[in-house]
């Protein structure tokens, strides 16, 4: 399957990160095009979250370079990065005591420049982010009163409020029930198609990643094991190599994407 790709929004060449002998990331190359949904998969401790840290510029790589929208990551200030790239970390860090609406509005920080207070434009964008993430019923709720799934959606809404061109997410659906898993993935898919948003997400849910991502990057022990379409990456051989378990792969009926099932013979 040949996927027509837009201009490259974010890329990493020869990325390496680690201390001394323990290299967490080694020689990873990847590129993310506008409008593309890229999934990073791999076993626990394989370096997925570290890779995301390198890509968003919060961790300086020991080796290699990251380019965001054609410029090296190092040439941007923090606020310039934030105007282009959003991050939803694994543990949604939310300010205690803030309401849901206030939290989403804080996402407008990078776009406000020296402006001290929100204007109508900020309020409209924040409202749309609340609608998109299904949080409109909770706008006056305080962050401390939210469930894990609500916190995760709020962190996403806050990142969307910054209107990024590139969005990085670390396990955005890990605390969500089935309905909200689907809702978030469809939201990301639609935003990619509509606005050309480039999304890179780390996920443990191979089937969800395989169903929605245009391409997958499988890493194991800090190195790229495979990169390509879900059909190319989600094969029993590669998954056995990465995870050390036997799986069978068939097609899920709705989209015909690969579906991974664990094989565990009865003892």
């Amino acid at each position, binding site marked *: 399957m040949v996927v027509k790709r837009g201009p490259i929004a974010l890329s990493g060449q020869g990325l390496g990160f680690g201390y001394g002998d323990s290299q967490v990331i080694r020689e990873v190359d990847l590129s993310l095009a506008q409008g593309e949904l890229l999934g990073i998969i791999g076993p626990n401790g394989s370096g997925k979250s570290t890779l995301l840290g390198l890509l*968003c510029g*919060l961790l300086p790589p020991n080796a290699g370079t990251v380019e965001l929208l054609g410029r090296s990551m190092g040439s941007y*200030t*923090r*606020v*310039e*990065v*934030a*105007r282009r790239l*959003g*991050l939803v*970390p694994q543990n949604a*860090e*939310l*300010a*205690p*005591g*803030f*309401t849901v*609406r*206030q*939290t989403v*509005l*804080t*996402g407008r*920080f*990078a776009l*406000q420049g020296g402006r*001290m*207070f*929100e204007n109508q434009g900020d309020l409209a964008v924040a409202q749309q982010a609340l609608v998109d993430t299904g949080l409109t019923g909770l706008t006056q709720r*305080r962050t*401390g009163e939210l469930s894990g799934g609500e916190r995760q959606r709020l*962190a996403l809404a*806050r*990142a969307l409020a*910054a209107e990024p061109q590139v969005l990085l997410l670390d396990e955005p659906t890990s605390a969500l029930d089935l309905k909200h898993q689907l809702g978030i993935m469809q939201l990301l898919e639609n935003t990619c198609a509509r606005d050309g948003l480039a999304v890179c997400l780390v996920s443990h849910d191979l089937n969800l990643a395989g169903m929605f991502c245009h391409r997958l990057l499988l890493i194991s022990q800090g190195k790229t094991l495979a990169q390509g379409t879900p059909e190319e990456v989600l094969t029993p051989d590669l998954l056995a190599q990465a995870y050390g378990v036997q799986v069978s792969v068939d097609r899920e009926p709705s989209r015909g994407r690969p579906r991974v099932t664990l094989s565990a013979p009865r003892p």
Partner: protein
Amino acid sequence: MRATPSRLITVCLALSALLLLALLVGLWLGTVSIGPGQFWDWLTGHLKGASAIILGQLRLPRLLLAALVGACLGLCGAVFQAILRNPLAEPFILGVSGGAACGAVVSVLIGLSGLWGQAALAFGGALGTVGLVLAIARRRGSMETSTLILTGVMINAFFTALIMFVISTTTDQKLHAILFWLYGDLAAANLTKVALLLPVTLGGAGVIFFFARHLNLLTAGSVAAASMGVAVERVKMIMFLVVSLLVGVTVSLSGLIGFVGLMVPHLVRMTLGHDHRLLLPASALFGASFLMLADTVARIIISPSALPVGVVTAFLGAPFFVLLMAKRGSRWW
């Protein structure tokens, strides 16, 4: 409450009215009772004699100093709580005030006893302690309650010992004054001190308010703040410098007044919410009123004698601290 310019103005006006009220109450009440007629005469500049001296040279400078000190302490508490991400953080509890006091005492020891010398060394003491607290908090970017309290207890124990050591080497006649000062005393207030603290307070408050939105993001966490465009390390450095300056100068002028930085921001949050664009100006204004009233209580409660104001704030603040610790995780934070 969402922060808007009109709400900010409303809040500032309301708290300024409270400030004025606290000032009038403080001028009025005292060991020597001043009648309404005399008070009116003083306001219009017609009062002569002892009453005029009491109002103009004793009560007024003392109240103005209390207001500035209270504003500084309220602001510093709010900033510490945001940056260490812990609602119990406060200059006194963290030991930063103790560090400043130590610097001030050392300045007396080495003969740098002028206002500026004392303030400079107190600033140095505060800065050193803040650096220590920062180093301890650095690994996680926030501070657990147990770490915070234990760190504060240990820092305070060390500085208390150091201060006792220095006091032991001084002559007896200074002892009473130093002990009162250690408990936070505004009795030695004069307009020179007010003139020293006023620009520091205004400047510090201006810088802190400029970073109100940064502090909003920092309370979420370092990673979130950085990913949304805050230069985390630089903002923290600036805040710690400003807070050290405010605490240092405040302590050198008025000693160890505890718990104001704890109670004031919390009472403000309970009514206005957590947005620093409202919280910071409100904490400064309310802190000012709070300390003026606390000092008035300190002056009249055992009249004709007077208490150090730090005793009053500790009587209120220590139970408040315990209550907050017990309620941690609930709606107050």
